[in-house]
């Protein structure tokens, strides 16, 4: 008898969610430099609602599953995390339940890098893109695709209120092999 693993990490099941997105200091939002598009949407609930920093507006899809959100960058960027804001209490059957994240150079060679399953989420869901290998902390890619494969209660369309994409901060001091950590170094390393 399989117990309901509400915290099952093996299958990538995530429950709950944070009301506030707690970030590491060395992450920065990369979405501003990307072109965002969706596979389908209802008028008035388009892709702009995904990026407007307003948790009351949402994107509503209007087509067949899987529903896709495409994030395309002009050059290869290193990405570390994707954060979604979804709320079961508000959206019920529109809440996504299975999400697949793919990366690649373009639509032709996307490869799945992560799958998560959400169980009654409420709030920000951070999804780390790192692999187990320390060499795979970041995904170096031109394009990211977030696919909603299924919804709660078998809903057809989905609501997503906000999506954010994070990558590492570049070294503020160029041409250094490593970043500085101690205050003495940081104080002396720049002129303001």
């Amino acid at each position, binding site marked *: 008898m399989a117990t309901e693993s509400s915290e099952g990490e093996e299958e990538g099941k995530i429950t709950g969610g944070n009301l506030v997105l707690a970030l*590491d*200091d*060395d*992450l*920065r939002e990369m979405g501003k430099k990307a072109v965002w598009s969706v596979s389908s949407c209802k008028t008035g609930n388009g892709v702009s609602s995904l990026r407007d920093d307003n948790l009351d507006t949402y994107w509503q899809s209007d087509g067949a599953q899987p529903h896709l959100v495409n994030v395309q960058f002009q050059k290869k960027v290193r990405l*570390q995390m994707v954060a979604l804001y979804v709320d079961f209490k508000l959206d019920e059957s529109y809440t996504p339940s299975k999400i697949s994240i793919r990366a690649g150079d373009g639509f032709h060679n996307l490869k799945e890098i992560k799958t998560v399953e959400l169980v009654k989420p409420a709030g920000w869901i951070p999804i780390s893109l790192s692999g187990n*290998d*320390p*060499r795979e*902390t*970041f995904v170096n890619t031109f394009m990211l695709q977030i696919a909603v494969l299924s919804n709660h209660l078998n809903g057809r369309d989905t609501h997503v209120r906000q999506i954010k994409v994070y990558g*590492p*901060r*570049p*070294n*503020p001091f*160029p*041409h*250094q*092999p*490593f*970043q*500085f*950590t*101690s*205050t*003495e*170094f940081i*104080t*002396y*390393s*720049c*002129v*303001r």
Partner: protein
Amino acid sequence: MEAILVECVQNSLRHFMYRNAIFMCERLCAGFPSEVNLQLLAGCYLHNNQAYCAYHILKGTQMPQSRYLFAISCFRMDLLKEAEAALCNANEPGAEVPNGAAGHYLLGLIYRYTDRKRGSIHHFKQALSIDPLLWSAYEELCALGSAEEAAAVFDEAAAICIHKQYLHNGVAPPNALMSCEDQSLNFARCSTDDVSTKQLKQMVGNNTRDLAGSYHGSTASSQVASQALNGGSAHLSLYNTPSPIATQLSGAAPPLPCRNLLPNGPNLSAFGADSAQRSTVNPTIQAPRRKFVDEGKLRKISGRLFSDSGPRRSTRLAGDAGANASTNATSVSGNGTSNSSKYLGSSKLSAVALRAVTVRKGQSWANENSDEGVRNEVSDDSRSSSTLGNCSCPSGDKRSLDQEGASMPVAGSVLTNTRVLMGTAEVLGLLRLFGEAYRLSCLYRCQDALDVYSRLPHKHYNTGWVLSQVGKAYFELVDYMEADQAFNLARRTTPYSLEGMDIYSTVLYHLKEDMKLSYLAQELIATDRLAPQSWCALGNCYSLQKDHETALKNFQRAVQLDSKFSYAHTLCGHEYVSLEDFEHGIKSYQTALRIDARHYNAWYGLGMVYLRQEKFEFSEHHFRMAFKINPCSSVIMSYLGTALHALKRSEEALMIMEKAILADRKNPVPVYQKANILMSLEKLDKALEVLEELKEYAPQESSVYALMGKIYKSQNMHSQAMLHFGLALDLKPSATDVATIKAAIEKLHVPDEIEESL
């Protein structure tokens, strides 16, 4: 009616009732249209911050004062070309700039904002030579990087200049506010003054009797200082007599014989501070008379002056004045017999005469408080006679009188000529310290600047301006803790001052004190929402929290408030670069440089941008420019070295790194960079040595261990490498570095595994 309106307008201006002043002035101009009245109206508008009104009414006027006011309005409206045209007509290149020092200063500013550095420097220097107390001109020269040493600028010649000025003022058309002190000072100092010669020449034309008469008249109106000016002041008083007397003439001057020191006395006193006091209505009739008197006296004096030899006339005079002052001070009753015997007789006589005249004068000018003056005159006379120590001619008496009169009673306090001299000397001494310190801090020789500031007297040191300059000096020395303290003190002494608070916010940014920084920003905004410094502080606050977009917005607001505030532009540039918007960043830095070419932060910013974009040639050039401006900054030097290394000029890079290390022992970055360079030059052992030293100094820095690990790895000393990588990881580097280090560790293991498996 015209006079009444003028009086009313001036009164309103004095009491800051600008609306009243404007209304009355408009009536005045409507009723009595004349250019002088237009000037007054323009002045009212300018006081009320309505430069555009002043601009329109003064357009096309030709009088020097009008041109000056017109230029000011154009400057405030940012119409620099018109302002310049008004001040120095292109068709008459040799014409004199209106309002002397002030005009030159304004021209200097215009040239500076239109990028003509040499012209700007020339005009500031002119302004300073005309008026050595024009501190702003010296400040601008320092900012432009071409100021001479303060001791050279604020020296004896300057003192002479000041005296000359006051002297000139004395002879100029009645200026009630002319202080006798100035005049006496001028007198004392201007031995070879052109002005004095001119005045003297004027004097020459008149006969002494006229002089006497005019003096009498003029002095009557002025409150005579109770102390006679000394010899020096005597000269001054002669010079002074024209103006103060003119302004303070009250009633007809009874005809006095040459030896009638009365006229001199009052005149002299007039010279004294009184002239400033007595801005009452001046009977214009007396003015010309006074002029005559003055001229005569001047003539006498000039004769004396020119007969004097030696360059340091002023000192001699000062010396005399000093001696006289002391002696005179004691004999206020007008018996300046303590002084030279030559004048003894005359002084006695004059004293007597004075007394007599005093009485008379007192009666005639009672309403003008001339009693005091008269008494002063008497004493002045005696003193001046003694100080003059010259011929016993009546003019000599007059001169002595003048000298005595040159002491100024200012609202009861008597300023003698010597005191004026002393005052000038003190002011100049103070300015010398300030000027030297400011010049050094502009040249970024901060330690020297700090030394000079510490020599200031305590009550000056503990003012907001000095403390924030001290803070700024510490900031440039990268000693942020001291800077924090100094700025803190500055804020406590003058909490309303915003000068230098943008630098304070940067200091707090460097120290990562976000609480203090946000508190500072809130306070500054509350003090003045329209000052660019407040918005800079707020922007720094957001930038510290890594919210670069909001920080940029705030810096842009600062720029909007004052587009000539170069630091705001530089900070905008920094934020653009953090947002990786290099194009706008470059534009911002270049704007900052256009305003102030010596703003080395902007040069540094540009260098950093090009470094990131891998345009190493450009980057090296910009870092070198920054280095030329601020040759003591070890940070700039280390970046210059990095750029050189990227250009493969590693030898030079190493040299610069050495200099950087020497420049500031506490800066670990150049040492680290040196190790970096050595590593890339394959001098691994030396690199390791350097890093070992660095480890001692900064044991908490993960990048040091990481780099050492890397070096050991390339030397195939795997255990050491592992050790150091582990240490580096323990110190919590950034995610990128964690990845890099872990990857390096993995690679380390592979050869081990291969060995083991073999």
